[in-house]
């Protein structure tokens, strides 16, 4: 069994190196400086970085990092699937061997088999022939739930090879964050782009995944709420972005059983990632007149809901801290830096104590990092 896997791997590596060399001949143009390196096969541990790119430029990409060899491959999706990832990739997830990428402005859900690196399906995210503007994705009980700026959660059944039509569940205005907790789906309706967003705070919709209907809507849990995360103790962590004016951003801890917000951290929380009992929050603010973004990472004890460190990683490590993800096994903290939002960014890796370990180049506006082993 072990031997056969090895044989399969070596042949694949052989095949890939031929592919690699030919790609180099085709792709490496003397006239044009290039940053693309040639593909390498993920031997054991991989990190995938989703880069949003720039809106309307079709340069959302996937960066592959071979964590064992430290080798970085840019434009990984294009190299493997042979077409562009598209415009503004917003979210991705890996369930088993399947990777899902939500490409917002292309209105696509890309579903890829990570074992063979073939496209299982590319689903057009549109309702009544209008693009739904998909944002974030989760999986629950064999179903995929995608929030869409059109005010719906799209539900896609993974059975039958994703061939079934999409179910649309009407939620609030501009839903963003989505999380499953205690067999319910929680959706953050940001009310982000509406002209009333300065006054209307948005809400949370709770979907029953068995009936695919909204069973409850909770108001007054923050303003322009975007990110949602859960811990193992039934708490929901809500990023409240404020209104870029008089209402400042914060982090709201919402108890799903009592349906009340127990604690509020009055800080410019941008993102929260939870790994076991440890919560990591990127905290920063855009300050006028320059709108420079100064951000750091703080650490939270999610069991007690208290701050462990108010500066685990200092802001001096970043130009523009953009994304934050935790490698679940080692607890390493992967921070993405979007630089000036128009050039290639970086992933900066810190250990769980905030010590800088390594750094990798990415595409433009790296937003999310996921890990995969095979």
């Amino acid at each position, binding site marked *: 069994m072990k031997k056969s896997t090895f044989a399969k791997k070596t042949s694949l590596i052989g095949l890939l190196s031929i592919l690699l060399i030919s790609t180099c001949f085709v792709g490496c143009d003397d006239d044009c400086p290039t940053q693309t390196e040639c593909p390498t096969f993920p031997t054991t541990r991989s990190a995938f970085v989703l880069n949003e790119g720039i809106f309307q430029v079709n340069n959302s990409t996937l960066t592959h990092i071979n964590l064992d060899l430290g080798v970085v491959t840019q434009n990984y999706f294009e190299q493997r699937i042979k077409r562009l990832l598209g415009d503004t990739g917003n979210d991705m997830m890996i369930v088993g061997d399947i990777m899902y990428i939500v490409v917002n402005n292309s209105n696509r859900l890309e579903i890829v088999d990570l074992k063979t690196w073939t496209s299982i399906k590319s689903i057009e995210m549109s309702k009544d022939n209008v693009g739904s503007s998909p944002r974030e994705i989760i999986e629950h009980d064999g179903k995929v739930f995608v929030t869409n700026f059109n*005010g719906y959660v799209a539900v896609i059944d993974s059975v039958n090879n994703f061939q079934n039509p999409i179910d649309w569940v009407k939620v609030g205005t501009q839903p963003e964050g989505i999380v499953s907790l205690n067999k319910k789906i929680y959706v953050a309706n940001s009310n982000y782009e509406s002209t009333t967003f300065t006054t209307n705070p948005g809400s949370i919709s709770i979907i029953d995944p068995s009936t695919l209907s909204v069973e409850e809507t909770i108001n007054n849990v923050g303003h322009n709420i975007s990110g949602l995360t859960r811990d193992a103790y039934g708490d929901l962590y809500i990023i409240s972005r404020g209104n870029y004016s008089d209402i400042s951003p914060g982090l709201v801890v919402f108890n799903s059983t009592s349906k009340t917000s127990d604690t509020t951290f009055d800080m410019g929380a941008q993102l929260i990632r939870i790994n076991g009992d440890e919560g990591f929050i990127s905290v920063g603010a855009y300050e006028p007149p*320059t709108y420079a973004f100064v951000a750091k990472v703080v650490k939270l004890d999610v069991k007690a809901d208290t701050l462990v460190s108010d500066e685990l990683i200092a802001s001096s490590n970043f130009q523009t801290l953009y994304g934050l993800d935790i490698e679940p096994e080692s607890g390493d903290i992967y921070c993405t830096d979007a630089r000036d939002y128009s050039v290639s960014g970086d992933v900066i890796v810190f250990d769980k104590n905030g010590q800088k370990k390594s750094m990798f180049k990415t595409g433009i506006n790296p937003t999310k990092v996921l890990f995969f082993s095979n």
Partner: protein
Amino acid sequence: MIKYLLNGLIGVVFLWFNATTGFAKNPFQNQNKEIDSLRVYEVEPIEILEKKTNDEVKSLYPVQKFDQKEIEELSVINVAEAVKYMPGVMLKDYGGIGGLKTISVRSLSASHTAVFIDGIKYSNTQIGQIDLGRFSTDRISKIEVLSSGISADLNLPAQAYLTTSSLYLQTQGAKLSGLNQTLTVDSKLSFGSFGYQKIQLGSKWKASKALMLSLSADQMDAHGEYGYYFQNGSVLENHRRKNTDVRATSFESDLRLSVSDQSTLNVKGYGYFSERGLPGSKIANNDIPSQERLWNHDAFLQSTWMSKAFNTLDYVLRAKYSYNFTRYLNPAHYSGDIIHNRYTEHEGYSSINLNYHINPYLSLSSSTDLAWSTLFSERFDHPERLSLLTVLAVKTYYGDVELNANILWSNIDEKGFSEFYDKAIDLKRNDVLPTFSLGYWIFNELHASVSFKKSLRLPSFNEMYYPTFGNTDLRPEYTTQYNLGLGYQNGFKGIIESVSMKIDVFRLNIRDKIIAIPRGAFNWSVVNKNRVETTGIELNGEIKIDVNRSFKLAVSGGFTYQEALEKTPSTALFYQASTYGKQIAYTPKVTSSMIASLYYDELSLSWQMAYVGSRYISGEQIIQNHMPQYSTHDFNVIYHFKLFSIKSSIKGELNNAFDKRYEVIKNYPMSGRSFRISLSVHS
């Protein structure tokens, strides 16, 4: 030789000489020495219509122009397409007949180029830039690009001194071309690819010796669709541009009243009404067509009074009112809402320009402009801008040296509402901006000039106040430019009729450049950030050959090399480490153009080539950001004939003859080969 000849020639003969041979020294320098040895005759001014003097060559400030005949010989339908043949000008074309077309002069953004119609600025305070695709070339008698915004003319409005560069459009107005005609009627019919059809009707009437009137109207329709290729990774996809239809109607009416030989009143009324689809950019893996639509209703009424109070004092009064209405509709917005926005902008403008000619060597001038603009929209809280611009200018000649110096006081008073600070704001911006230039005739055919100008561009209402995007802390974007010019022109008696050449070396420094940055995935704002330093050279040349009376040839060419480098200091926030010292986005280092025309009796044949070098869509020079160079070739043939004794012409065009597939703006594909035919009659 020419110098000696000139000494004895005044008035008509001088005018004629200047017009035919091209280039002459300034009239004043030698006139004074000789004036008592010759008798001076007062003669009526005459106009030479056919022969062209190449003023570009001996200008104190960089000037490029096309006259009416040159415009007619180009394969273009709007001003934007015409100016791309001028060195230093890069056309930013979003593709298609209805696609937005703006220009970048010497690597600057479109907002730095002010558009003047018959000497009065055509402004859009909300957006800060003008879609040049809307200005048809049919009624234009002259297009000038002034890379420094001004010429050495003293009768410019103060607004010209504020802007970094200008595009001057001279319309045909009410003036009749023939001397003995009292009523003319003209019409033009055009058909072409993309469902393009246009009908145009015009009439001019000489009511009396003093009063001339004109009226014209045109209607244009096109579906605008075309096929294009899209490189999606390894796959070359075939698509078609959709939602590209345009329909536009425009009216123009002019009145010209010559009160005396010394005083003229020109009044112009203009209306433009259009509806178009906005196809948007090509989004990879997304075949859902756009349904966005845009309506524009633009109108203005302007007048210019030019008069001579004394022999030494003349003045120009200008006034304008303009109305711009924009309506945007997106019935299929992803939010599920129908997005429907309306914007109405009003502008009032008046200007006084006084020119005092102390003696033939020295002239003083002042211009004061007062402009007011405001915007009404559900998206804005009624911003208002009042600008008072005053310029003092001096122009002097001494021997072979010509000097022009100006100083501009700019006082901007602006009222608006800051969403961020949640309060009304009242801004006052005061700036003093000098301009200076020096010209020198090295010898009669060779002219050198050096100029310096400080200018600014104000943030638009969108940049200041648009909800969630605007930033009321914005400062103006400042530019400093230096230009060194060397021009040569000579006329000959042989087969070669004339040769002219111009070299300009320029340097442009921009500070506080206004750029958009995101503060969240969909939430962008604008800040003052970058510094850019541009150094470049422009070459321009023209040769005219007369083989015989009926066979003529003219070839002109332009070439630009420019390095526009991002130089934001490392102390500034958002320091772009990876783009420092790199060429800025969408700015090719090399552009060039060529126009060759062949005339045989009533037939003319023209070939136009435009080349745009490789460039990057961002300061980061990686392969994904690279856009390859391209060149387009347009051909046309014009035949002039008499149709029942009516002057007529037929023009056939073959555009992008070699079917070059390219993009100017990333993901806005341009059309391939296309055709157009037009018939004009003129009685």
